């Protein structure tokens, strides 16, 4: 029903799709780390990173601008960094007066703000590319292969499986609520704010009880199939030669990016 709302994987036949999920996870972490390591104002390196991203987009057959279009979600948080523009640790560029406030953007401030934004924006796009080209269960397998704690990865797998079931349940509750409060036109739809919050709280409580009972049934279903506390999984992935080749290429690329970023 609402399942598609949460699906991020887009099925395509591409090199990126075929790449071992471990390589993709490590690349993502490496890329984000590399962005974080680059100094403020390493424009050339940022551009190289961006080209890398475009190239990966293209290889994935999702279209050059795919991750760019979906990266808008990262924008709202940029607000938090706006104040960096007025960092006192630089030379003032201008002075703006707003009533009792005086704002002084500085060159270092602008440099810092722009760099933060670019780093964040590049990182987010690589994340988007990862989940668009990798089915989430494979991502969980990758984490397991990389020695992520098994119980945590299994909990995440359960969360993934049941977020669809429980959000459907939530949407049903929400629809029922809206259906009942629709007739109250003229009055403030749904009553006072406090009341609305209480209704939301009751829904959360209901959902909790139902979920708790569901976990009991699932537990029984697991026991019925021989579960004794140790989750066992098959290893569905093996690193191919091409995976090794691509990951070493990416490693070299990231090191080169660092060099470009640090040589002035």
């Amino acid at each position, binding site marked *: 029903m609402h399942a598609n*709302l*949460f699906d991020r994987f887009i099925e395509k036949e591409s090199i990126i799709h075929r790449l071992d999920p471990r390589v993709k996870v490590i690349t993502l*972490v490496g890329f*984000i*780390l*590399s*962005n*974080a*390591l680059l100094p403020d104002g390493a424009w050339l390196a940022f551009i190289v990173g961006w080209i890398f991203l475009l190239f990966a987009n293209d290889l994935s057959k999702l279209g050059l601008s795919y991750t760019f279009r979906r990266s808008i*979600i*990262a924008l*709202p*948080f940029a607000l938090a*960094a*706006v*104040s*960096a523009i*007025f960092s006192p640790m630089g030379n003032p560029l201008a002075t703006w007066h707003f009533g009792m406030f005086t704002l002084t953007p500085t060159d270092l401030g602008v440099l*810092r703000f722009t760099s933060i934004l670019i780093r*964040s924006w590049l*990182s*987010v796009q690589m994340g988007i590319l990862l*989940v668009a080209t990798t089915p989430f269960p494979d*991502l969980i397998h990758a984490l397991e292969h990389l*020695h*992520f*704690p*098994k*119980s*945590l990865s299994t*909990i*995440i*797998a*359960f*969360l993934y*499986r*049941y*977020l669809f*079931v*429980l*959000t459907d349940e*939530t949407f049903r509750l929400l629809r029922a609520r809206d259906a009942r409060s629709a007739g109250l036109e003229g009055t403030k739809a749904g009553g006072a*704010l406090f009341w609305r*919050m209480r*209704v*939301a*709280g*009751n829904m*959360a*409580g209901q959902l909790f009880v139902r*979920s*708790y009972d569901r*976990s009991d049934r699932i*537990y029984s279903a697991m026991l019925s199939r021989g*579960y004794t506390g*140790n989750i066992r999984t098959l290893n569905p992935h093996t690193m191919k030669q091409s995976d090794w080749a691509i990951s070493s290429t990416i490693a070299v690329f990231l*090191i080169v990016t660092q*060099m470009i970023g*640090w*040589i002035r």
Partner: protein
Amino acid sequence: MRFSPAQLHIPDGFLTLFVSAIFWLLTVLFVNQAIRQTNKKLGEKQVPLMGIMAAFIFAAQMINFPVAGGTSGHFLGGALAAIVLGPWAGILVMTAVIAIQGLLFQDGGLLVMGANIFNMGIITAIIGFGLYRSVLNQNTKVRLGVAGFAAWLSTMASALLAALQLWISGTSQLQIVLPAMLGVHVLIGIGEAVITVAALSLIERTRPDLAKPEKIAEQGGYGWIIGGVLFSVFAVLLSPFASQNPDGLESVAENLGFLSAGVSAPYQLLSDYSLPFLGSTPLSTIAAGIIGVVVTFALVFLISRSLKKTDPTSKDH
């Protein structure tokens, strides 16, 4: 469309490596302990219960309530999870939720995920459970009242921590980000409080077996009360002081060498990112860069190895 209340999920790039690493370290310690403790208490039920409860929190965060002018409030759930499931379970559940929000929906970054988990899963559990635990023997009214206050305060503490992290990272000016963050979350926190209280009282009424005080008492003892009260006092005292007098806080931090350490820490390890014996040439900068990458990778590798060893349930067949 976003899938969680926005303000608190810090994306990658907004915190320095130093701040990210510190909070990853703290978070790994807590989460590792949470895995052990819940495994000890729940045994083989750990995985299904924690997984479904994480899905519950994820779904409950979709429940919105219109506030005003087209905006709507959301539920975060950290305090509620810690109160009804116990602090360790609450931490584990919130960790899973924040992990999937970061991994699958890019809601919150990966390098900064340690900080996000700490802000939204650990501090909320300490304050939420700690305060509630301290009044467990009181009557329902007092308990629910304190649960509400704890939920509100845990939201404020999350916002406070996020603001401090952004400031130490040199991303935001304290005198702007702190009042902004706290101002927004004073309101969001009220929603959190009302929802937590309503949910808790509904659970107590319909399924008293799930939220029995004796059962909650078993989940954590005086350590949590002390921790909860301590952090609460800290948050309550620090917030107004910092909002009214951010310069004061800034100078305190500066005197402690806190600020400069935060801004350029990873590079300072290698003294301005160059190796002394190579002199200050581009070559030495490059070499230092490579060493930095290697060291970081090695750290990540070691941490994950040690995690594997200490995790009692990681048993491949």
